[in-house]
């Protein structure tokens, strides 16, 4: 299944690994910040409404 990458296997694999890591990091970070702000807003509005 894994294609034969020949003598450039390390380069190709590391390019994919670095890119996927960075993409997962920005998606994860954005998601985490979104959840944190939603909770903060819910708490602030609950305080406002008494």
């Amino acid at each position, binding site marked *: 299944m894994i294609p*034969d990458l*020949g003598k450039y296997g390390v*380069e190709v694999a590391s390019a994919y690994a670095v890119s996927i890591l960075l993409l997962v990091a920005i998606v994860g970070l*954005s998601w985490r910040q*979104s959840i944190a*702000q939603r909770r903060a807003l819910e708490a*602030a*509005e609950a305080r406002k409404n008494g």
Partner: protein
Amino acid sequence: MSLWEYANPKKFMGWTGPVLPWAFGAAGICLVGGLFWGFFLTPDDYRQGSTVKIIYLHVPAALMAINAWMMMLVASLIWLIRRHHVSALAAKAAAPVGITMTMIALMTGAIWGQPMWGTYWAWDPRLTSFLILFLFYLGYMALWAAIDDPDTAADLTSVLCMVGSVFALLSRYAVNFWNQGLHQGASLSLDKEENVSDVFFFPLLVCIAGFVLLFVALVLLRTRTEIRARRVRALQIREVRK
């Protein structure tokens, strides 16, 4: 209804909520499909060997690094001209996504450069303008973080964004302007008779669609986060004044 009304914070939260899962879903399908097609189902290039598979990450990321800045420029101009808060927040939201794309382009380019050019880095016009674009992204994010008043931060970052646009454009056209250095011309271009071979071209198009959709989805998500953060800040100020 005017187009501007969709950018009203309340309306924006209303229409982006249902759109987000579809945007992330479509981005995921295109990215996974395109990368799988490119990595597993395409042959090696007769000159570059298997390193040609890096094109499916490098080209879409570089394209989005430049276009993210252009989107920030448009949003910044809307802020400066119309004082539309959501546009300023959208520009702020796009910067971390844009810098991620720039990092992917720079790193995959360096990894690709070593076997092809014999070096990870050269002070080539395109590489150098991309590095400067990366530094502009850093400066832009730092400026937003350094200024407490959001309207002042939006004003100053908008000006910085206009200045940085020169380097965003330069990184796209550097090869044409100077016609020197190691980096080749555009892999895909509407005004060229010949682009990359079809066997690489179609999976590359799917990957580009995936990167564009992921950018859109992330900017929508992050803009929603910024709108909520702004509302939290307003409520906190109101609490303190009571």
